[in-house]
């Protein structure tokens, strides 16, 4: 398989009370095309920070982030799904999805086409003309996913996207995400604090721990899909990762 993204010796810190706090140190990560990676780790360890670096929301890092795929003017290499949908409330759904397309050299019809395709992918075509406040929490999050997909990213960054939803909606969206992933072949970097979710979704689960943080353990989830949420193989992996995670708390990371 071809690599899409290669992150090498990424370090990042920020100043607090005149002291330099290193958050991430010497982090290496390669993402293959079409790969689904989950990242778990203690809260405050820097999982979101990693995504923020890739999304271009922070530039205070050293190291290399290489996009190994041919650059294309009408796409963006990365796009982000946030924990809260963060839709722009003054834009109707379709217009919200077009946000990322607006800087790209595409004509209006093409942008609308891309947005409605993304909307169809999350199965909410009926909602194109609605205001965000008219949608349920789960629907809003799906629009957030559509907005990220519309720019056809090489790597989709998801920062605890289902963390604020109720259990049933969350499971529904997890399956929906797997379907979208299968249909689009996108590479996904999925940050979560929910180990069950991480294991159920991913090809690979990375444990980010330590202070400063780096990838301490890597778990390959070689369980064929569709997976049984409570199947013996998953349960075993989940418990293994849970042990790894609780060990990492005592490892000295912030709680």
């Amino acid at each position, binding site marked *: 398989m071809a690599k899409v993204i290669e992150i090498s010796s990424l370090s990042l810190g920020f100043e607090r009370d005149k002291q330099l706090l290193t958050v991430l140190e010497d982090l290496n990560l390669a993402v293959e095309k079409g790969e689904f990676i989950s990242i778990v780790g203690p809260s405050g360890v820097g999982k979101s920070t990693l995504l923020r670096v890739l*999304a*271009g*929301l922070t530039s205070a890092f050293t190291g290399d982030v290489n996009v190994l795929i041919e650059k294309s003017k009408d796409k*963006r290499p990365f*796009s*982000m799904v*946030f924990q*809260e949908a*963060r839709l*722009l*409330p*003054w*834009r*109707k759904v379709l217009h919200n999805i077009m*946000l*990322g397309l*607006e*800087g*790209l050299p595409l004509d209006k019809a093409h942008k609308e086409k891309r947005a409605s395709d993304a909307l169809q992918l999350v199965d909410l075509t009926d909602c194109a003309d609605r*205001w*965000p*406040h008219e949608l349920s929490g789960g629907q809003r999050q799906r629009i957030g996913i559509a*907005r990220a997909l519309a*720019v056809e990213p090489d790597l989709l960054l998801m920062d605890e996207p289902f963390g604020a939803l109720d259990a049933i909606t969350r499971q529904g969206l997890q399956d929906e995400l797997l379907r979208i992933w299968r249909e689009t072949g996108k590479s996904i970097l999925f940050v979560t604090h929910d180990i069950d979710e991480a294991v159920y979704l991913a090809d690979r689960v990375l444990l980010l721990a330590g202070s400063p943080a780096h990838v301490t353990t890597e778990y390959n989830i070689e369980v064929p899909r569709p997976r049984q949420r409570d199947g013996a193989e998953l349960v075993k992996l989940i418990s293994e990762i849970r042990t790894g995670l609780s060990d990492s708390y005592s490892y000295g990371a912030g709680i």
Partner: protein
Amino acid sequence: MSKAKAITLSVVGLLAFLSIWEGFSRSGVVKQTLVPPPSSVPTALISEIELGFWQEMVMASLSHYSVGLLIGSVLGILFGVSMALMPRMAASLAWTVRILRPIPPLAWIPFAIIWFGVNETSAAFIISIGIFWINYFAALTAVQAVDKDLIEVAKAFGHRTAYARLTKVILPAALPGILGGLRTGLGQGWMTVIAAELFGIPGIGQRMIEASGLLATDVVILYMFTIGALYGVTDYLFVQVQERLLAWQK
């Protein structure tokens, strides 16, 4: 409450207010010149229209009002938004603003007359001052309150220039607050328009002073009603536009 019911109630309330007033005025407790009955207003209106005063004064006041409103609102919003976006500039002007802010628009009358003379420009200047501050603070607060998360979203989706940030997020997000300021200014403007005309610039205010000098209190009441009606119409029209612009709100 249904819309029809709300309208009915507001009409009933207004009629009750006018009836009590009418009754009191006719009861003879006080002289009718002191509290003229509302029923005297139509007669006063007809005579003022026949004399040509009413149209002339309304047009004059409307013109002061519109010019003052336009200048005050545009500058107020412009400065408010800019200050919110430039914290350093805001900090350096903080005390200047504090000192200028509490000066009532009417306190500028002497300077208005010295600078511009007793004319329309003076009236527009005085009106614009009050409106400026209202819009300045409304826009400043609205922009400062914009959800930083949404600015971040725009950034994550490639909108990295200050201009893109402004047009994609800040202005639309601040619009409800800015419109709120505009609406307050709409009312404030009518209050100052009359006061600004009291010192001799032709308009409703000046005509009211003339009438009260002649104890033609029915004419004074007529112009009070006129101001009320003009404000009512402007405010109503504004709310129609506002509702359209803010249809995205719950």
